[in-house]
């Protein structure tokens, strides 16, 4: 990367696709050295994506570099930058700055069973975790995916569920708060689904990402179920403007989400989560 870490790489949108209601997948081919930088990105890292003229915002990297040279982001349309990104089409240029932050220590997880809990757009940074496990299936134990959204049309990566379900020793459990007529899976909160699914805490690691309240309640329940805090991982988000530990905004107590995170285990942030809500 250039000597100026605030300067993004240029990237060309090679694919845009609706993932869910108001959520778009952006597939970006990086130019001027960016491809090289992202070749070593790790599950859990993030990057800033620019809609030039509107600004930039942070997004979880949604694929592993082993799955292709382009970088994927799943972007929910919520405000000015995200709306700008939704309006772009194939061939348009964006800026990408990263990869930033720490990541899930996938090597440390080897030999363990994984419980992956994703809520809404929080599924985006979990997709590379799932891809990594599926691509190195023998290295890990059982993979249990609990996937939730407010409504069925807000579930992300639906076209990949068959691949996940078909993988050895892997199960996918879906729930929504408000079902529609066609819905044939669980209804209710992800915590209820977790109680019903009841994965075993022995030799397991959990990974949770979603809205703050979901993270708060899910990690509390996991602790009650006997999952030890040092093996309960979360990925957090906070408003941030640099991703480099400079702009000061994203602190959680003395921790900076951008450089000390976004990946934390509950041993490190358990006491601080109240201030996150």
């Amino acid at each position, binding site marked *: *990367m*250039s*000597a*100026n*870490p*605030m*300067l*993004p790489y*240029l990237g060309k949108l090679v694919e845009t696709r609706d993932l869910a209601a108001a959520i778009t997948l952006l597939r970006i081919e990086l130019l001027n050295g960016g491809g090289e*930088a992202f070749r*070593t990105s*790790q599950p859990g890292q993030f990057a800033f994506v*620019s809609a*030039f*003229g*509107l*600004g*930039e*915002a942070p997004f979880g990297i949604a694929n592993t570099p082993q799955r292709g040279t382009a970088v994927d982001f799943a972007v929910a349309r*919520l*405000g000015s930058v*995200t709306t700008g990104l939704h309006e772009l089409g194939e*061939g*348009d*240029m964006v*800026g990408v700055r*990263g*990869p*930033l*932050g*720490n*990541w*899930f*220590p996938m090597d440390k997880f080897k030999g363990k069973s994984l419980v992956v809990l994703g809520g809404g757009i929080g599924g985006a940074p979990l997709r590379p975790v799932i891809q990594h496990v599926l691509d190195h299936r023998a290295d890990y134990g059982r993979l249990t995916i609990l996937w939730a959204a407010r409504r069925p049309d807000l579930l992300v990566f639906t076209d990949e569920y068959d691949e996940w379900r078909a993988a050895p020793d892997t199960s996918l459990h879906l729930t929504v708060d408000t079902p529609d007529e066609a819905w044939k899976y669980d209804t209710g909160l992800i915590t209820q689904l977790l109680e019903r699914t009841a994965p075993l805490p022995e030799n397991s690691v959990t990974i949770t990402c979603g809205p*703050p309240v979901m993270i708060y309640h899910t990690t509390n329940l996991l602790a009650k179920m006997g999952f030890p805090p040092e093996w309960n991982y979360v990925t957090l*988000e*906070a*408003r941030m*403007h*640099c991703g*480099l*530990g*400079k*702009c*000061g*905004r994203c*602190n959680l*107590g*003395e921790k*900076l989400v951008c*450089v*000390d995170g976004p*990946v934390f*285990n509950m041993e490190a942030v358990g006491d601080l989560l109240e*201030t*996150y*809500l």
Partner: protein
Amino acid sequence: MKKAKPEGERAKSVSDKRPVEYSQRWTISHKELETWLDGIAAARTLLAPRDVSGVTLYRPVANSAEIAPVFTRPLLSVKGVFFPPTERMFTIHKTGLEVQLEETFPEWETVVFGVRPCDARGARLLDAIFLNTNPVDAFYARRRENTTLIGLACKELGPTCFCTSVGGSPDDASGVDIMLYETEGGYLAQAVTEKGRYLIPGGEWKETDLAHQPSAAGSQYHVPEKDEWPGRFKDDYCAYVCPTCRCFVVRDEVLAPGEFERLRCWDSCMGENYRRVAGGHKPRFKRGERQRNRFFCKFYYFPEQYGLGAASACTGCGRCIEVCPVGVDVTEVLVDMEEQV
């Protein structure tokens, strides 16, 4: 880009005090000081305390006559010299599907005269973030490198000053390049760094063995007296006047059709929307919680995040006390915090 470690500590390497590199000293008269500053102002940008509608600020001066004759510390610190309220980081040119980014860096050389020890310390504290913790901030580094600080020791503490209570002192030379101490009829000048030595007119000044006698105020615990606080600003102003507050936002502005600039601008953690995220959720929303975060940042988070050890990120300049409209006093909070520990 350098990768963060997946778990555990970040690399931190900051020492709060830098060693005084030089100790060569001169005695100079008022006239010699004026001639010297006039020479500097003619060759490069000279910033100095200056009266702007009744408020003292570091501003460009054309000659020494424009410098405020008597001042304690200016209302705004020297922070803005290295980290301006608004900085253009690059421009964006769009033509059809093509996009070009053009980096813009400040290149000019600046000398600041009359820097009070607390402000010099503030610059050292910002160094901990922008220079000494990876990645180095390209803009800050450029400005810092191109700036020479001429310090002026304080003879006494001003009404809201409490530098001596947070490890500083009115005659601390550790953050400037040249230090001036007022004497009978002139100044004792000391070169502190090589950069400072470079600015001193070689043969013209009279070298001396006299050393500055450390100020008696240096070790006193000082608490400002409340009655003298004017309190004239709005409720997130403390962050703007503080020499070590550095929160910023990044945003794009339109210059012309297809032409944009990416800016970063000062921001305040006391602002209501500081943490607002898309969708409207605002963690740390109440004023008390924001207040708590600001003080914890100064005395705990900042030192912890940037490896300052026991040092605090408050220089004791007392500006936030001076501008607070509701009389929030960092020294009272500090005493409370110490009692709670």
